[in-house]
């Protein structure tokens, strides 16, 4: 019994983390370059493979073959540790995301934890240590400033990120991401309560605080993953390249890929919490419960749905990046502490009152 669980978990880790998420990271880098090119009336990388799809492979080879330069003035141990500390937490959060319903009687989630979102936040916020270490170990002013900015930014937005999903958890009454998706599959997605129990006055009224949560969650996600308009830790116009100024070759690539991995996991979490995870709209092909058997082709469709939604959200991230200019630092802090923190708190109270009034 023990070894069966271990083997199943290993297969799921290999398939979902190494064969799906990592290629997705590479593909999102390619998508970023092609989409930004199209937005700016350019063509983008289109030479390597069909539509330039193999560009990521070429980039990877380039990063591996480049000289791995460690400057003399850095703290070697921490300097080497930092890139791994950015990449690993981003991938570790994959563990609790439900990629699909069930396939061949196995739940399509690596670790079916009962504290899913808490695990994601706890682990994802570890990646700030990577950035802080990189900034400090580089022993140079621009990386240092980038590291300091990143710390304050991540701490500020961690709060609103955590608070923004509290209303959702109150509505679901559940912290297991698999059950949350099952609930949404039966009763309408959090943002789109168009079927099941969601299609009632209660569902529609509750959609208001959920929408506010969604906006706060997405914005905080942008800030957490250091994406534009909140990429102040590395803003190249002021800080050269921020915390990874001193890094080269694969160590730089790890920072770069860590950012995209965090973006994918963030999209995955947003999809799971707000957009019904792997479920199709209007309760099509919805299993009876989280434990019920699911035909294998339903399972495959569910996995496909999840990744389609994630890719859609990644494209949204990319378009936003090429649409908005960077925030000024004081604006960023003001937005985090003065607006989002208060709105998220108020939202929690509002949801509680609404739930009490509607019950």
């Amino acid at each position, binding site marked *: 019994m023990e070894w069966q669980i271990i083997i199943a978990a290993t297969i799921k880790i290999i398939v979902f983390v190494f064969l799906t998420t990592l290629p997705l990271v590479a593909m999102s880098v390619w998508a970023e370059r092609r*989409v930004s*090119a*199209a*937005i*700016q*009336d*350019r*063509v983008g990388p289109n030479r390597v493979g069909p539509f330039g799809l193999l560009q990521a492979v070429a980039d990877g080879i380039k990063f591996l073959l480049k000289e791995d330069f460690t400057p003399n003035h850095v703290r070697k141990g921490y300097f080497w540790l930092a890139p791994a500390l950015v990449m690993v937490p981003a991938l570790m959060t994959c563990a609790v995301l439900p990629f699909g319903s069930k396939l061949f009687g196995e739940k399509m989630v690596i670790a079916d934890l009962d504290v899913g979102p808490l695990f994601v936040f706890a682990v994802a916020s570890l990646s700030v240590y990577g950035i802080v270490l990189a900034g400090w170990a580089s022993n140079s002013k621009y990386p240092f400033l980038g590291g300091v900015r990143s710390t304050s930014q991540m701490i500020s937005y961690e709060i609103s990120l955590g608070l923004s999903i509290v209303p959702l958890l109150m509505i679901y009454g559940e912290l297991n991401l698999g059950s949350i998706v099952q609930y949404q599959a039966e009763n309408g997605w959090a943002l789109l309560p168009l079927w099941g129990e969601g299609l009632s006055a209660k569902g529609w009224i509750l959609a208001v605080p959920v929408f506010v949560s969604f*906006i706060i969650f997405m914005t905080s996600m942008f800030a957490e993953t250091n994406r534009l308009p909140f990429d102040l830790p590395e803003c190249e116009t002021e800080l050269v390249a921020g915390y990874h100024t001193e890094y080269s070759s694969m160590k730089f690539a790890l920072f770069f890929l860590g950012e995209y991995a965090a973006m994918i996991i963030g999209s995955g979490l947003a999809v799971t919490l707000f957009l019904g995870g792997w479920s199709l709209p209007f309760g099509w092909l919805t299993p009876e419960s989280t434990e019920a058997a699911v035909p294998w082709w339903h399972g495959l469709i569910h996995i496909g749905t999840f990744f389609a939604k994630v890719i859609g959200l990644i494209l949204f991230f990319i*378009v*936003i990046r*090429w*649409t*908005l200019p960077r925030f000024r630092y004081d604006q960023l802090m003001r937005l985090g502490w003065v607006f989002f923190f208060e709105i998220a708190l108020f939202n929690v109270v509002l949801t509680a009152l609404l739930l009490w009034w509607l019950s």
Partner: protein
Amino acid sequence: MAIVVKRPKLKLWEQLYLPAIAKGMRVTLGHFFKIVSGKKKVTMQYPEEKWDEHLPEHYRGAPALVTDEQDRERCVACQLCEFICPPRAITIKPEEIPSDDQWAKVEKRPKAFDIDMIRCIYCGLCEEVCPEQAIFLRKDYAITGTSREEMVHDKEKLYEIGGVRVGLVNKWNELK
């Protein structure tokens, strides 16, 4: 007196920031879909597609020397182009035309005429200053070579690019 710049007073709708994001995304997605659907094309895929047919009349490519209709080299080695050339790309060694030559009355011709294409900035001042209309900027733009020596165009190469131009200057002809 200091000027006070009037800041626009934003309405609540504008302060919300979200409508602005939607507006911005309309612009970026507009560009995106126009390019993706192929309705608009801005860039050219260089080695496959070239600009050659659409090069404008005034295009300034590689400078070259020309001969006239009697196969006489137009250049009289006055060295004006050498002196005006801002990056000093042109080097001319003049020589006297021997008295038994058909064109002895021209007196001078270039023995060597080198243009360093690594230095050339395609400004066209040589063409402008030439009193004999002997040097022209042609439409060749892909000037390549594998060594610095190869990038220096000598007289032979310059005449090869330039070719013949007729009916511009008649002062050395029999007619005059």
